[in-house]
């Protein structure tokens, strides 16, 4: 029987576990902790216990799967509205390349396209580091329909048995991944920001922001394969296709020896035998009909902005927004904000940066009056240079900044605007 176990020898009855519990799931009676009916095995007390007296015991996970039958790392290559590979898919191919080097396996990109698609996407995936592209060219895959894609990926994974499947944590990726995981009855970790792999077992250590965002949790999937994760866009760099390119098509193509000796497989052009054409079951069809499509306002994408001014509650009042807009204008920047400002109605949701908003990756991010809750920080990991202005020198935002300015943000921005205006 699995469950919460308290070591009576160690427990000192300090009640830290009781304070850490969100569900009244543990109590201290006669200076000894014990779980109640409210325990949901969330593990908060395990972490809170200063003497390591509490643990969660679980029966050996029995999926009945032969884990050794599963190999390679798959990356789902989502396409954008224009039919090109999404940036995050390339980021993941790059990351998968690193993981494959540790594990000694191959990187396989999975690409669904319309019937008439060219080789461009497959070629880009190969030159970004994929060893093989599994491609299905079928008009049913030309639109991003979760159910059609889920059935396709499920049957492909059942047949070819990948050890790991990575998807970008885009809106579609976060809808598709659970639809596949539940059909494969395997584990899925959402929105990871850190990935590491164990060389011997191939177990993926998936780290993501957890409860309230103040904690990071590292999650593993020990007994089930494939292990699946969606990964936040903008965390890993896009591999440079030119990097180490020898342009000699590897004719040994799908050879398994490839990644086992060196993970840094030389990039090559798409040799025809590196692209494996696969089929989609004729019985699969979409049940959802798209009647109308309203594209995103192109002028307002903070996700692709090169320079970004991000404002938080510390700017004090909505009256100060025009000043921030002026600063953004002078820097040629887009304006982003934190969640409280959207909730207060100062700016629209599309401006929201962070875990529940947009992940951004500008060259320069100027953060003004932002305290830096981890949900927010999680969305700015892709920024190259972060400059923060905040009056609280202890604000967490400074921990994520390359350049820290402690001061009244309105005063500093007024000065900055004045000096930039003088410059131009």
């Amino acid at each position, binding site marked *: 029987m699995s469950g919460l176990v308290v070591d009576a020898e160690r427990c000192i009855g300090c009640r830290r576990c009781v304070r850490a519990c969100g569900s009244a799931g543990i109590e201290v009676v006669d200076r000894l902790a014990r779980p109640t009916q409210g325990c949901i095995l969330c593990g908060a007390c395990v972490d809170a216990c200063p003497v390591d007296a509490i643990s969660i015991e679980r029966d050996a996970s029995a999926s009945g799967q032969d884990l050794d039958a599963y190999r390679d790392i798959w990356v789902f290559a989502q396409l954008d509205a224009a039919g090109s590979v999404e940036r995050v898919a390339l980021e993941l191919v790059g990351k998968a390349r690193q993981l494959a080097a540790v594990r000694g396996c191959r990187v396989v990109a999975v690409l669904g396209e319309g019937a008439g698609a060219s080789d461009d996407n497959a070629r880009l995936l190969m030159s970004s580091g994929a060893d093989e592209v599994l491609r299905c060219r079928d008009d049913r895959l030309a639109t991003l329909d979760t159910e059609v894609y889920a059935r396709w990926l499920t049957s492909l994974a059942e047949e070819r048995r990948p050890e790991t499947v990575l998807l970008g944590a885009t809106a579609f990726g976060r809808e598709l991944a659970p639809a596949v995981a539940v059909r494969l009855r395997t584990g899925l970790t959402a929105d990871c920001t850190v990935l590491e792999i164990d060389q011997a077992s191939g177990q993926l250590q998936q780290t993501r922001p957890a409860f*309230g965002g103040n904690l990071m949790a590292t999650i593993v999937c020990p007994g089930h394969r494939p292990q699946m994760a969606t990964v936040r866009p903008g965390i890993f760099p896009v591999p440079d296709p030119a990097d180490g390119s020898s342009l000699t098509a590897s004719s040994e193509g799908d050879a398994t020896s490839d990644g086992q000796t060196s993970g840094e497989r030389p990039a090559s052009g798409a040799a025809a035998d590196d692209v494996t054409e696969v089929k989609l079951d004729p019985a699969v069809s979409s049940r959802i009909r798209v009647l109308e499509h309203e594209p995103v306002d192109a002028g307002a994408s903070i996700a692709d902005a090169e320079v970004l001014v991000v404002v938080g509650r510390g700017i004090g009042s909505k009256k100060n927004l025009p000043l921030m807009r002026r600063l953004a204008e002078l820097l040629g920047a887009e304006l982003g904000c934190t969640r409280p400002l959207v909730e207060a109605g100062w700016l629209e949701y599309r401006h929201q940066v962070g875990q529940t908003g947009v992940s951004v990756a500008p060259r320069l991010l100027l953060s003004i009056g932002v305290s830096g809750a981890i949900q927010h920080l999680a969305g700015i990991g892709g920024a190259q240079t972060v400059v923060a202005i905040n009056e609280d020198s202890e604000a967490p935002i400074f921990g994520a900044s390359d350049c820290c300015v402690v001061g009244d943000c309105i005063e500093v921005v007024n000065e900055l605007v004045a000096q930039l205006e003088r410059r131009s």
Partner: protein
Amino acid sequence: MRIIVCVKAVPSTTEVKMDPVTNTIVRDGAQSVVNPFDSTALELALRIKDEREALGDDVRVTVLSMGIPDTERLLRDCIARGADDGLLLSDRAFAGADTLATSYALSCGIRHLGRPDVVICGKMAVDGDTAQIGPEIAGVLDVPCIADVRELLACDGNCLRVRRGTDAGIELVEAPLPAVITVAKDAAQLRMPAICGVRASLAAPVEVLDVAGVGADPARCGLAGSPTQVVRSFVPERSSGGAWLEGSPAQQAEQLVELVEGMGL
């Protein structure tokens, strides 16, 4: 018409205190509330009910949750606001469930209630942020799923029509019933309970079932049925290797202008 709304109890506060010794979250038995996204899900269900009942249809809205016994209080609050009844799956054997085990348990609850026309979930829970339960339930039930619904336009007995968010913008889509939808928090604001609703909620049926009662396989529930495990949780390091700009605001601004110019902007 049968609508099932899945709700989760989450801590009422997003303000989090840390224990300085163990570096863990201190919750101090904070009262739980219905996940805000799920409140929106309930409101959309109640709107369908209002609309269809005005046309003479019979619509039953059931709230479904997996949680500790105390969650019954929240289901009664949902009934006070207009839901007809509730089902709570509560058993120590459900504890420790990841999203696969949770969606399995909820699907068992849905099957126990009889085949619904629509299952409505919040897009995500504010404590877990996985956004996986809705699509996973749809997968188990083998029905279409529409995620991130921003606006419910129509729902008759045969199909529903919604506006949803996608990577490439907003789409107007139609799906046949039965279907699962997951809703964005700002799609609606949950109504307040009416006095008669509060009175009704006290007497309303809230069924509480354990693993056996709902006909679930214990091996697929809770910790035992969860492929994923949390092996470590930790407070992220905040190492500041950044430069601190000193001086008056004017001097600080001057250094910032230099930095911007240095980047060629």
